[in-house]
């Protein structure tokens, strides 16, 4: 909305790593209510799609909401070309339930790719609540590792992994998580990243019987419980990711169904992205 209380203006933008962008958007009402674990839905233009993006940070004083996204399709590509001063067509939130933050003792937070940006406010809140936060962050390769410093500032310990070993430990975050679980008495784990990574992380924590919270990146339209496209089966029951989640107990999620549902529009998404690339 222009001229209203929501301005949706981009006031800061930075490329954190090749293809990964950070953006601050002016949205005072969203910033006022936002909590760790929640998300927004945005549209770049009138003909655009409504896509959910996790809130990476928020500043109620400045009235801004921070998001970090990777260019993976047409909408994120378009978003990455928008400039400071541009206005998003639509920006609504904060949606979903906030993370449940309590004092647990030692906790582990695991972020893969842009999931690091989503896990950061959770880590910060856990740290502020007096937990000992062990953070595990990973990326494909060195220059895709993001927000390491921010994570260090809220963690007792940070483990960095890269798939190719170009920085930190070689391998996946899930392997590093296994190491941490062996060494430490971890009371609770949060994992945010690609669905398959979250699924594997849950397999890793299961034998240790540690509660593992995941943040599901389901396909969404309205984000308010109206369409049901974001349904997921948790403990045998249908839940709506946008209103009942996005965080769920990872050990109770039907991962195969979730992974299948993520692929529903793969062909159309690729077509739209291709057409976009050809035009620009």
């Amino acid at each position, binding site marked *: 909305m222009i001229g209203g209380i929501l301005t949706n203006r981009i006031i800061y933008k930075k490329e954190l790593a090749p293809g990964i962008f950070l953006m601050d958007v002016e949205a005072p009402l969203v910033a006022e*209510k936002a909590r760790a674990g929640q998300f927004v839905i945005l549209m770049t233009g009138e003909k655009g799609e409504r896509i959910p993006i996790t809130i990476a940070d928020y500043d109620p004083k400045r009235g801004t909401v921070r998001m970090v996204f990777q260019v993976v399709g047409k909408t994120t590509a378009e978003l990455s070309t928008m400039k400071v001063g541009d206005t998003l067509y639509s920006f609504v939130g904060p949606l979903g339930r906030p993370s449940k933050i309590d004092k647990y003792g030692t906790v582990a937070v695991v972020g893969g790719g842009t999931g690091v940006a989503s896990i950061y406010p959770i880590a910060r809140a856990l740290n502020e609540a007096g937990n000992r936060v062990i953070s595990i962050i990973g990326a494909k390769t060195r220059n895709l590792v993001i927000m390491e410093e921010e994570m260090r500032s809220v963690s007792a310990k940070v483990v960095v992994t890269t798939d190719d070993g170009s920085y930190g430990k070689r391998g996946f975050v899930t392997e590093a998580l296994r190491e941490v679980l062996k060494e430490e008495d971890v009371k609770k784990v949060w994992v945010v990243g690609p669905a398959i990574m979250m699924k594997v992380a849950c397999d890793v924590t299961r034998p240790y019987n540690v509660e593992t919270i995941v943040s599901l990146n389901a396909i969404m339209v309205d984000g*308010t419980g109206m369409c049901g*496209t974001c349904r997921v*089966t948790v403990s045998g029951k249908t839940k709506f990711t946008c209103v009942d989640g996005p965080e769920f107990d990872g050990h109770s999620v039907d991962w195969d169904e979730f992974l299948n549902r993520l692929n529903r529009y793969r062909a159309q998404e690729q077509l739209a992205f291709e057409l976009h690339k050809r035009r620009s």
Partner: protein
Amino acid sequence: MAEMIPIKERMSRSPRPMPEQEVKERVRNFDEVPLGYSKEDAIYEAQRCLQCDPPSCVNGCPAEVRIPEFIRKIVDEDFAGAYLEILKTNSLPAVCGRVCPQETQCQMACVLSKRGKPIAIGNLERFVADWAMKHNVEEKHEKVKKSGKRVAVVGSGPAGLTCAADLAKMGHDVTIFEALHKAGGVLTYGIPEFRLPKRIVKHELEKIKKLGVEIKTDIVIGLTKGVDELRDEFDAVFLANGAGAPQFLNIPGENLNDVYSANEFLTRCNLMSAYRFPEFDTPIKIGKKIAVIGAGNVAMDVARTALRLGAGEVHVVYRRTREEAPARLEEIVRAEEEGVQFDFLTLPVRVLGDAKGNVVGMECVKMKLGEPDESGRRKPIAIEGSNFIMQVDMVINAIGTTANPIVSRSATDVRTDKRGYFIVDDETCATSKKGIFAGGDIIRGSATVILAIGDGKRAAKAIDKYLSEQGSKDH
């Protein structure tokens, strides 16, 4: 005033049908199906009206539209006057003329329906509203003094829009908060273009904005702002957030990839214009053979939309028979004409999928009708051993919607019933909390546009009264 034609001729005339798009054509486009009356059609039909006193048709209209009065003005060719006559009690005639179930309301109550020839009141209403839109007929408002009172309306469907417009006309400052990026409620995201063109909804929205009503989109009440906060910031609040949460049958396989809720299917298509993908970014899938579960208006809209999107075969699967189907007869007939197939007395029990989650079939059981239940409809009973598999590759669930708890969760002391609908006073739409009113689907469950309009009107009156009482107390 023009002479009415002699009674005998009025009685002997047949109703004038409204011309429609050819079936062959219309299943390939999203344009409106009925094409509207010409001036001559409208006058011819209006002349049939007996101008009853008292008029029984009005008893059938939840908004008590002044039916014989507006019809009389059509006979006089005073179409602008006819329009203003309707506006006295119904703020959205172009919408109602298209989507109201007149055959069970005013037209059923019309004295001529006994002879099977009720006046086509809906067609006339639509003609008048379209004529007014084309000729920019504007309501003249006496300038009312600003009351200085501010009212918040939650939701921009017919209930919210009506209440907002009426309150604005009474001099109050009204702000509508809408969760989606576009206003209009079900009129925008649910009812398809071929039944209610979006330019009509836009026109109505423009009219309401011209009254000074501010519509703030992208604000989810309950998340972006709570009802309690609205109560603090405004002098009164009207909750009209609809009954938008989709229900499912809770049968195995319902979360397979190609199982949609009607809301998802229609929202993608209408709100997001997925039928114009890839010009618009939102995709939609379409099966070769689709099962649509349910037989209400929503199911008909889904089935006919699916055909237009290129589905090979569309089956409406319903556990009772055509007689019990809640959809308007007109919609069932149009769906049949367009090639939708109906599988009555059939209940889905399981959706079957492959390893990738694609739908490969739906197991159903055959039903028979037993004794009438509480609703007076005969209860469907499963016939044991009659299970069979329907070869479908997509399933769309149109069995209904229910209350979404997001709004009520943030409304302290506003009482809801077991299903989450707000409990209100029938006359005033007042909830259990002072200054908070509610109407439309969120007090009734999925109902109709005209009932939502009626609630909006009654609530506006009650809110106006409440505000004036507050005012005198404050000063």
